[in-house]
């Protein structure tokens, strides 16, 4: 079987390691705030669920119960969106470690640095993740808007239930899109690992560039 070669990948060659790109820098900064937002949203959802359950068991006002249902769903799914976004940002951070660490390792060996250009799966991962986030945020905002719009009339309660059902479908589409984005991120990791294992195998047999002293700052 023919050994794989780095030439089958689209690569950017440089003297020095390229470091993190913009999405990876964002991933490094934003995973923790998203993680915190996720936990807060989920806990707020539980608290509101307990309050709503208390209203139901004490035969509270129907419009209050319907409003609380909307707000609870909105907060819970904002929490879920935060957790899923944190997973996506953590994946971007891992890809950043591969890019920066792999480049620095090649630079340390004195060879030319080959950095994988952003694969199509990574672009799709970013696009799908942003769309998923927008879908869930829009659904949650609509939940809050509709929560304020409920009155105690039968028509209003029926409309509220109908809106809830539609928004539930939209929220779940958002979650499914997030899971697709995460799968694309993991597929990108696989491509990066494949490229790096090939590149590391090629390094010992490669010649160092003829003249490195005139390019870039002195690294000693």
């Amino acid at each position, binding site marked *: 079987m023919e050994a794989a070669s780095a030439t089958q990948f689209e690569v950017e060659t440089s003297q020095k390691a390229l470091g993190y790109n913009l999405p990876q820098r964002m991933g490094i900064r934003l995973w923790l705030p998203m993680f915190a937002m996720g*936990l807060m949203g989920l806990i707020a959802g539980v608290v509101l669920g307990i309050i709503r359950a208390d209203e139901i068991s004490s035969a509270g006002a129907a419009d209050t119960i319907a409003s609380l249902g909307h707000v609870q769903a909105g907060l819970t799914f904002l929490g879920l969106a935060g957790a899923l976004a944190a997973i996506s940002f953590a994946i971007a951070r891992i890809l950043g470690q591969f890019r920066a660490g792999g480049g620095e390792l090649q630079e340390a060996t004195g060879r030319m640095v080959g950095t994988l250009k952003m694969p199509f799966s990574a672009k799709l991962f970013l696009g799908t993740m942003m769309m998923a986030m927008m879908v869930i945020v829009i659904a949650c905002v609509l939940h809050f808007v509709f929560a304020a719009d409920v009155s105690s009339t039968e028509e209003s309660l029926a409309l509220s239930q109908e809106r809830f059902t539609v928004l539930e479908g939209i929220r779940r589409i958002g979650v499914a899109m997030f899971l697709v984005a995460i799968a694309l991120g993991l597929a990108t990791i696989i491509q990066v690992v494949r490229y790096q294992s090939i590149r590391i195998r090629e390094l010992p047999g490669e010649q160092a560039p003829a003249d490195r002293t005139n390019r870039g700052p002195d690294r000693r």
Partner: protein
Amino acid sequence: MAERAWAPMLAMGPMLVAVGLVLSLIQSGESDPETFIDLAGWTQGLQFLGLAMTLGGISFLLGTILAALRKGGGEVQESLGVSVMTLKMPASAKAFVALMMMGVMIAIVQFVLYLVAIGREDPASWFAWLAPVRVLGVGLILSGIVLALYTIGTVLALQFDRLKTVVTTGR
């Protein structure tokens, strides 16, 4: 433990979700209101227990990846004849394990509570607060997965750094 447990969890999860699907189909054809609510409790409890098991399997897989990175990194250093440096278990890894276990426990508890609820006079109020509780369980497992991925990133950074040191200093 992670290396052994991921496969059974990943197998059990979808099976429970499938059983929940079958029950929901039976529920959709049910005309008796009490049986309808009983089946609703079983369906929701089983499906979220199945989802939690699947996510738990993914968490164990991530633990297996961390174990492979630890073992592989040590073997590479040993084969190069340099002193082996291994990262002590970071706080993020401990938090990952804790969150994952809490999430799976909440999933099991919510399933049991659904069965308790369907035996009561007013299951609707129980269902009202069990819904966000089960999502909290799933959310905690997802949060654990976030920390596992963060730990993988940290381990990779250390390993690249160690390899660079070995290449430049030979130690």
